């Protein structure tokens, strides 16, 4: 099997990277009064991993949207400040609708760089796809053309990882868990045999396969969403003081470019430092009371 590694001269090597999602920096209040605590814990958890990753991808909603651009800029700065504490890893991000849907991605580009791009890492081709900055759940014709031409130089067997914010299929359209032109993206990816899509937005784990393309949603680092199949109205899961990071977490992706499926490993957040009632009460004092539901 011809792999990308053979094409670009890199030796095939096992690799591992970490996916974070939906940190919503700046969000504070019900249903999750802990603000950036889970994000900070995720950074500590990554730094404590036995083999710390060289690459961390973040699949959108880095910041929580703010009415004032000044406040939103502060949130981007805080995201960068916290994420910069991840030791030794390069960080690659895509925007979520909170980051980029109101201004077409201008502030995201200012602080984080382009909203879509591609790069190679250890023989795997990564495509960062923006399905938010159009203001609606869409990739758009222009980006689709870009993605097709980006893909065109690879053999159908090349290992490809697409990372984006929203699901590229109709997971739950009435909760806005879809991308309106996701079918076109999937059709463009369909001829490729080793495609994995990593995304966020839904604040819970999900696996879905279309043809040979495997799609994994990551947990968030703030308020989880419940299972839409058993929940009539979209609403975050309630905060559990006894288990503040319940249903939150990070993901480690392990792979080997010589074939075989990527191994997806869900990693729990270290909660030790927040144990005990005193620590929890202290954390809860940080909350203000603006209630938001996304």
């Amino acid at each position, binding site marked *: 099997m011809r792999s990308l590694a053979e094409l670009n001269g890199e030796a095939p090597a096992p690799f591992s990277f970490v996916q974070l999602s939906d940190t919503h920096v700046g969000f504070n209040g019900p249903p999750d009064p802990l603000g950036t605590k889970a994000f900070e814990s995720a950074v500590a958890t990554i730094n404590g991993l036995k083999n710390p990753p060289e690459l961390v991808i973040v699949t959108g909603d880095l910041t929580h*949207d703010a009415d004032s651009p000044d406040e939103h800029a502060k949130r981007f700065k805080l995201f960068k400040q916290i994420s910069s504490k991840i030791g030794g890893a390069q960080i690659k991000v895509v925007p979520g*609708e909170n980051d980029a849907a109101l201004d077409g991605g201008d502030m995201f580009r200012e602080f984080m760089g382009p909203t879509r791009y591609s790069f190679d890492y250890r023989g795997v081709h990564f495509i960062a796809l923006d399905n938010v900055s159009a*203001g*609606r*759940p869409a990739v758009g014709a222009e980006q689709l053309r870009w993605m097709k031409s980006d893909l065109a130089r690879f053999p159908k067997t090349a290992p490809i990882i697409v990372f984006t914010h929203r699901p590229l299929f109709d997971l739950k*359209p*009435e*909760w806005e868990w879809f991308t*309106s032109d996701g079918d076109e993206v999937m059709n463009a990816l369909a001829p490729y045999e080793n495609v994995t899509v990593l995304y966020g937005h839904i604040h819970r784990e999900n696996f879905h396969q279309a043809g040979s393309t495997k799609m994994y949603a990551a947990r968030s680092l703030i308020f989880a969403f419940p299972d839409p199949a058993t929940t009539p109205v979209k609403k975050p899961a309630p905060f559990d003081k006894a288990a503040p990071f319940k249903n939150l977490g990070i993901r480690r992706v392990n792979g080997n470019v010589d074939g075989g499926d990527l191994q997806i490993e869900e990693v729990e957040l270290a909660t030790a430092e927040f144990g005990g009632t005193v620590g929890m009460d202290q954390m809860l004092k940080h909350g203000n009371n603006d209630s938001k539901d*996304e």
Partner: protein
Amino acid sequence: MKTTTMSKIVTAILLAGICDVGLMLVPSMVGLTRASDHPKVIEIAAKQFEFTPSQITLKKGVPVILRLHSSDRVHGFMSKPLKIDTDIPNNATKDVNVTPDTVGDFVVICDRYCGSGHGSMRMKVTVVE
């Protein structure tokens, strides 16, 4: 539709409320008009982060016009099962023709990101026999 009675047609015209007044004055012409040409109009107002009314009831197979108006910024109006997908421009009115083909409760969402409460901007459409 050819067997439509006069009373049904008149009812449809009254419901529509937008028909040419001339038709009301010249009953002989009414026979040329089919009920489906003059669907009922339902007005829906959109603003951050709600639709008003938040619930409407429609009849299966009966065409209606949803007259959408936004008073603050552009919003979306989207439901896959109802086959609706449109933007509502700011300070403007947009008509959407709908003929529901399935009985049930359906959620219409704003799918044009409009701020931090956007995720809860939705309304319910109930379709009955």
